């Protein structure tokens, strides 16, 4: 069970550190084309920053910042973004996930449309992985009883 931790040093350091971890996670997602990285890795880094909130503060504080309902919405939103990127290509007249056709609605040439199509699906993957990692962490660490986690 998670016990609340009243340690000003840990809280201050984490408050300073978490924005940089999240920035790095966003960088790994957004720059996954050009360097090692991508949606899966970046999503895990974003989830790690949230886990640090849970460990350094406590569970109600963490859930106040990122509620369970939002978490569930985000976990399906990522797959939704990915699948709809594919469907957009289908609706514009190309094959499923054939991003080149997205140049009809984006102001770029077909090659760069593939680039932005890949960016869009990486964002989708990152959102899903982040939300699923967070919900797995919260459920496993409290045995599924979020509300009673601080009672004992």
């Amino acid at each position, binding site marked *: 069970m998670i016990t609340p931790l009243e340690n000003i040093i840990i809280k201050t350091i984490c408050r300073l550190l978490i924005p940089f971890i999240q920035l790095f996670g966003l960088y790994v997602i957004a720059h996954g084309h050009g360097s090692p990285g991508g949606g899966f890795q970046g999503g895990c880094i974003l989830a790690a920053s949230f886990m640090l909130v849970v460990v350094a503060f406590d569970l109600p504080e963490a859930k106040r910042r990122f509620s369970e309902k939002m978490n569930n919405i985000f976990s399906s939103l990522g797959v939704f973004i990915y699948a709809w990127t594919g469907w957009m290509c289908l609706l514009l007249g190309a094959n*499923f*996930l054939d991003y080149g056709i997205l140049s009809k609605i984006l102001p770029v040439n077909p*090659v760069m449309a593939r680039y932005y199509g*890949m960016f869009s*699906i990486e964002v989708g*993957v990152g959102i899903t992985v982040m939300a*699923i990692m967070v*919900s797995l962490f919260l459920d496993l660490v409290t045995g*599924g009883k979020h509300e009673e986690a601080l009672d004992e």
Partner: protein
Amino acid sequence: MKSLAFIVTVITGVLLIYATADFPDWGDPSSPASLHVSPRYIEKTVEETGVPNMVTSVLADYRGYDTLFETTVIFTAGITAVMLIRRPRK
């Protein structure tokens, strides 16, 4: 019965090990895997997709359908874990 299972296991293992002798060498440039689609990915990635990272172009573009359902598998597994473990307070 136990000895029969042992003999079958040994025979299958020997056959599998014997078959590995026909595999192409590690990193062999004339192996089927290096001749079919790999040259296209290596030569045309920047030209066709605009990304400098070959891994991403294969993962997200040429094999995008695979990655879509990888994401769906993660989503389904996570939702299943939540359904099984989560016990909200009434």
